[in-house]
């Protein structure tokens, strides 16, 4: 049972993290290849505070705020650059984040921060906290999708210039998406620090940014349920397919590739097609 708790916690954190990217990329159409940096900000903030014996429940909001502030800055960058330029700029953010963090003695430099204490919640309690936070944000995402906010996001994702001409203050909306998405990533980061009780510069690099993007795309970009499912599965897939051993990553990447190649709209797309087929019978 204990191991299952670990898996569930891992899944819940990934779901929260993936949904936070989905908010920016799936909803508002702003592609980010550097999302792990924001998780990193949250994780480092939390790790430093927890080392100073500050309670997890206080740590989480602070981590969210720190990540959100950085998110706001990157959001401003997104007002200058677009599309592929934005993708690479955000990618730059994650490299810069890792590069800066690894030079900071107070953040443990290359070595990172370890020996973080377990919280008072215990492993089960912590798992429940993670699941609840992921659930709450999923609910919020679903709400946004139904609201006019979601409608405006659709139009910005579609064409920013046209949105302007329809009287939409694109900049405000983009900043909003960035702040919400990155603050949530910061929250996931705080949970990460508690869960692994270790943070290091390499834990929040480009590879992690791509993994989370893969979760969003495999789930079906913009689809809340799809992204949740994909994040849950992909986060533990490497552990589940341990038995293929040496071929683990090969299998993982082959699955990812096939998914893109044969169902580019993700799991959500597959489900949609199946539903259509059933309905058309």
């Amino acid at each position, binding site marked *: 049972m204990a191991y299952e708790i670990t898996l569930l916690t891992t899944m819940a954190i990934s779901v929260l993290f993936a949904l936070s990217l989905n908010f920016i*990329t799936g909803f508002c159409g702003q*592609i980010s290849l550097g999302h792990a940096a924001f998780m990193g900000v949250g994780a480092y903030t939390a790790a430093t505070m927890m080392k100073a014996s500050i309670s997890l429940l206080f740590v989480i909001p602070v981590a969210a705020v720190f990540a959100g502030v950085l998110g706001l800055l990157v959001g401003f*960058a997104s007002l*200058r*650059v*677009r*599309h*592929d*330029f934005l*993708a*690479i*700029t955000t*990618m*730059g*953010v994650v*490299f*810069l984040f*890792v*590069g*800066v963090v*690894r*030079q900071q003695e107070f953040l443990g430099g290359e070595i990172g921060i370890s020996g973080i204490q377990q919280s008072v919640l215990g492993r089960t309690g912590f798992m429940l906290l993670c699941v609840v936070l992921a659930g709450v944000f999923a609910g919020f995402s679903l709400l946004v999708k139904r609201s006019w906010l979601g409608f405006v996001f659709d139009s910005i994702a579609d064409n920013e210039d046209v949105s302007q001409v329809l009287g939409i203050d694109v900049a405000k909306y983009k900043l909003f998406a960035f702040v919400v998405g990155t603050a949530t990533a910061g929250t996931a980061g705080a949970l990460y620090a508690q869960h692994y009780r270790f943070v290091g510069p390499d834990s929040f690099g*480009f590879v992690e940014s*791509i993994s989370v*993007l*893969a979760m969003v*795309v495999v789930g079906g*970009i913009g689809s809340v349920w799809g992204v949740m499912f994909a994040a849950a599965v992909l986060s533990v897939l490497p552990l589940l397919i341990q038995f293929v051993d*040496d*071929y683990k*990553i*090969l299998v*993982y*990447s*082959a699955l*990812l*590739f096939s998914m*893109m*190649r044969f169902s*580019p709209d993700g799991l959500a797309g597959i489900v949609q097609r199946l539903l259509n087929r059933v309905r058309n019978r």
Partner: protein
Amino acid sequence: MLYLELLFQGIVQGSIYALIALGLTLVYGLLRILHVAHAALFTLGGYIGVIVTNQTGSLALAILAAMIVVGLVGVAMYKLAYEPLLSKPPFIALIASIALFIAAEELFRIIFGPYGLSYENPPLQGGFEIISGFFLKYGEALVIILSILILSVLGWVSGYTRLGVSWRATVTDPDMARAFGVNTQHVRYLNFFIGSALAAVAGVLVALLNNLVEPTMGSVPSYKALAIIVLGGLGSIRGTLLASMILGVIESFGTIYIGHLLDRDALAFGFLIVVLMFRPQGLLGTR
């Protein structure tokens, strides 16, 4: 004197970046795909280069073989992986490309082993002294000469020949290019062939300079080359060249003078971000 040497080292590095990034620019220009798996072709080039050299003893033959094989693999990659995704949103192809890249790294490891390969009798060792105390290695000289040669030929073709104009027409509107008789399919094959062959050349040369090819050899170029083509202004050949050289030189001086503040990658990307904030379209990009 030291500055001159550092500058020169920057140019060597820049030339390698340019060879790799150029293929990426070609692909991006034509298909708007951020072709990360390009770096896997670079690694493949390195492997073929070392293996053929070790078998035959001829570096020239190895370069040729690497160009042809990798060029064809590039075309196959386009055909099997990208062509079906062209009408999809760009990040689909990006993720697919990353997946391909990871898979390729794993295949290299499984096929050639994790330890990497080296030239048994590394060719072009040694060098000559241009001015006193200033060594130029044969390998580095070859890198620079080949890059200049290849890049100027390409620049000339794309800017001044009918073929180049057709290529650029295909870039902006493939359907209309077809409507004027451009065989866009051939253009794409050729594009991938040339771009991949260039990556292969870079792979052989880097293998030569390091005397090592490893499964993960492509990890640096995989993202740095993306930064370069963006910095240059996506799709601009001259921009790519300029950005490669600037990054090479910045990294060269940066390693020595601010290496303790920021590593090479962070340096390169920090520079990229600063430039993009002032020129969102890249150095030589147009909007």
